[in-house]
């Protein structure tokens, strides 16, 4: 209680003065709110913390492989359903590769993330 930051007015009052106590509690609550929630509204930088180079490299490669795999898989399925072999696979594999590169650039923070604009 005697933390030395209060002004003199409260010191002289008796401790069981309820109005003064609740006023102090309120002020403490306000100060706590200010201190502990600095980034409530602003969303911070959207990057994942990759500490080691291994983790970083692993993340980037899995992003690239993921894009290519999804492109190839979707192209193959499309070909089976529509009978357009091999065009769906070719086109979607290339698009998947592009998506993989986009993923990598986003993960590495080279390309701006679409949600950060505005």
């Amino acid at each position, binding site marked *: 209680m005697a933390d030395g930051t209060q002004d003199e007015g409260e010191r002289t009052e008796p401790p069981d003065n309820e109005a003064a106590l609740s006023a102090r509690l309120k002020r403490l609550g306000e100060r706590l709110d200010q201190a502990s929630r600095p980034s409530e509204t602003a*969303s911070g930088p959207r990057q994942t913390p990759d500490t080691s180079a291994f983790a970083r490299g*692993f993340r980037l490669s899995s992003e690239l492989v*993921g*894009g290519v795999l*999804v492109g190839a898989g979707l192209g193959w399925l499309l070909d089976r359903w529509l009978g357009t072999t091999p065009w769906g696979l070719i086109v979607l594999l290339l698009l998947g590769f592009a998506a993989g590169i986009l993923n990598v650039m986003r993960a590495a923070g080279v390309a701006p993330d679409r949600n950060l604009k505005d």
Partner: protein
Amino acid sequence: MDPIHQFQIVNLFSVGKIGNAEIFFTNSALMMLLAVVLLTGFLVLGTASARPVPGRLQSAAELTYEFVATMLRSTGGSEGMRFFPFVFTIFMFVLLLNMFGLIPYAFTVTSHIVITAVLALTVFFTVLIYGLMRHGLHFFNLFVPKGVPIYILPMIVAIEVLSFISRPISHSVRLFANMLAGHIALKVFAGFIILLGTGLGAIGWIGGVLPFAMIVALYALETLVAFLQAYVFAILTCIYLNDALHPGH
């Protein structure tokens, strides 16, 4: 000696039948059950007698709450807090399973891609369904970046869609592969000790100190990785959920 042997699923007992397939309670299910029981017990006991000045257990429970809440707020703003139960569950579940895997003779559930893929797909469909429910067709603005010339827009949208669909793959493979690779490395170095000892006799056993020192170092690294991968999994979940809250802008 076989470094892959540790990932074997063992059927413990049968719990029933669906069609012709027998459903077994496996060692993987046992570890998951243990994690859930431990986590529930920890939180229930930690919050049972909530006091203004927290005891040890309550303090730990509050720390985990604050940790996940800060993570959610920093990515999704205060609006992201509606997903708090979901993210908290995922983070603590993965963290506990990763840590359990470090106990000798324990089974590492997260080293199986089935588990991580199901978790990642749950996140994926949560984003998809919640985004569609909340924003309707505006959710698809996610795939249409602003300021792109109209003649390359179809291609950009296709690439964005593929990039979106590929998320669960990198999301799940990262956790699974990190746990798998780490545990194989541990087993391989442990195997060196046995190989040296049985191959070279007394000199071999003395030389075995070197791989043993390596195991100690690797164990410290694996503990860090176990925590870090759970954290990365959870923060990626937050980032993806943020797309459901604010698509496109």
